[in-house]
């Protein structure tokens, strides 16, 4: 929290898909240990933001910085190697592989390291995953798959954990459980960046939030500030 160099930041990032201007002069700063939410509706550029962090989309101008270092031209694998890991939308497990193999793939960039403490941490957060280790990931229920997806990301020992729509496709009970776990992961020291449509849920656990609208950051405040903001309440929190 004390270091003033953001672990992850965007400086005036613009991206294009062909002629379509997606992100417009986006500035984001995320500091170590924080939990930050990126809110916005469909087609607001949320997914593009994540893809730009990971290098699937290259900015047409502006910079992406990790720990103050410009990584705009780095390939995905190297950025992941620097500690950025994503839990993708809809979990996207390797369904034909076992739960154990999914976790092993999560630690792909840590060859030769002792993973037993990482397994213990995953099993402590998700006791259910331990029971399912030998099962094919595709045979698990949606909630269990979400646990494996988060476990898989934690196996990389990420500095920054990106969560893409963690509430998508899950029953409300599971969504609440999910956010509780995200909070626990964050409390244990991992910086978390949650991209969500479910603004209420995301802001209930976040420190700060950004609101993205058609590619522009329109609001940038603490979670309390955003929850109290009348414009925000009307547009995203479902209040009239």
């Amino acid at each position: 929290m004390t270091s003033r160099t953001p672990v992850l930041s965007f400086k005036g990032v613009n991206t294009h898909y062909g002629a379509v201007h997606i992100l417009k002069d986006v500035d984001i700063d995320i500091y170590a240990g924080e939990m930050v939410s990126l809110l916005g509706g469909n087609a607001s550029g949320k997914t593009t933001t994540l893809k730009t962090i990971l290098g699937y989309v290259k900015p047409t101008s502006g910079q992406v910085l990790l720990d103050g270092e410009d990584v705009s031209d780095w390939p995905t694998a190297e950025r992941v190697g620097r500690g950025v890991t994503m839990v993708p939308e809809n979990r996207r497990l390797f369904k034909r592989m076992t739960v154990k193999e999914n976790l092993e793939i999560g630690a792909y960039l840590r060859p030769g390291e002792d993973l037993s403490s990482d397994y213990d941490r995953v099993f402590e957060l998700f006791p259910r995953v331990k029971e399912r280790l030998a099962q094919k990931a595709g045979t698990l229920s949606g909630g269990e798959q979400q646990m494996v997806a988060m476990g898989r990301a934690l196996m990389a020992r990420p500095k920054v954990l990106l969560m893409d729509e963690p509430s998508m496709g899950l029953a409300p009970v599971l969504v609440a459980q999910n956010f509780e776990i995200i909070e626990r992961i964050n409390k244990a020291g991992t910086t978390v960046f949650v991209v969500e449509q479910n603004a209420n849920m995301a802001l209930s656990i976040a420190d700060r939030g950004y609101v993205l609208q058609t590619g522009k950051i329109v609001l940038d405040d603490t979670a309390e500030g955003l929850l109290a903001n009348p414009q925000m309440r009307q547009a995203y929190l479902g209040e009239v």
Partner: protein
Amino acid sequence: MTTTTSPSKTSRRFRFNWVDSFLWFIRVSALIAIVIGIVGSVQLFLEGEGPTAEQWRDLVISGLSTGFMYGLIALGYSMVYGVLGFINFAHGEVFMSGLMVSLIAATLMFENGFWDANPTLALLIVLSISMLVSTLVAVLAERIAYRPLRGAPRLIPLITSIGVSFFLQYAFAGIFGVATRSYPPAPGNLGNDVEFLGIAIEGTKLLVVGVALISMVGLWWFVAKTKTGRAMRAVAEDKEIAGLMGINVDRTIVTTFAVGGAMAGVAGLLWALLFRAVDFLTGFLPGIKAFTAAVLGGIGNLPGAMLGGVLLGLFENVGPLLVLNGLGIPAVSQLKDAVAFAALVLVLVFRPTGLLGERLGSEDRA
């Protein structure tokens, strides 16, 4: 909307029924023909006509050894299909490349007597050269011809692979000439019969099956147990997420081609032992047969590719005499290839996804 959808729905149902009953007609008549053929052959056998028991045994052994060789080539088709979703039609030429180049070494060793003096070492040298060249050709084809087309519609790399196939054929015709050349006979006493489980089997055929089995086990271990194998399966399932986990997708795809090429290189040695004759078109028919084997077993499925290969080898060796001879068709041995492909059609009529194939997800198969 409802008025337009309902007639199309009924017409689809009608067409579905028609196709379905046609398929059943094919299935039933094929089964009847096969049963009549087999009964006829058994009758011939009991009357003391047709092939003798020894001839049947030899056919089964030939079928198995050829089948294992097809299976090894089929692995390359299946692996590449699993990872990239297209059929690399140049894979037969990958097999031929190793075979052609290692022929030089084999001839050289034969001429100075090394071939028969050190059979094991000589075969290992042929094997290494064949594997090395096939691997290299497969990797170069990926790098030069297929990688720039990554993300293009699926038909485009497919057509390109046919181009690569012709290119390799005629490049080898240009370098080595168009004449059929021949590998030296099996070295040492390998060509003699060996007693195995109480049956006399030609040593080369036993070696072929042994080498194929060892390669299969090795490949299984590689894909199931190693980190690279795991990465390969991850890339086959979801390239984007595999990349997100830090897997180098391009390198994994190259590895897939390399391993498939190496297996084709092993098959090259087996061909040299079984058939000996080689020319620039040698890769074509085994390539197509191995592709057939891969589809037969369920494309993308590695045990399926091996199973498909072995079955195809058996069908084409035993099938003509077993089924066609009993139906009274003359000159059945000429119909070997026809039987092999008829077997493919029949298996697909009964099991469209191949023997071990999984039901293909509608969204990831074009």
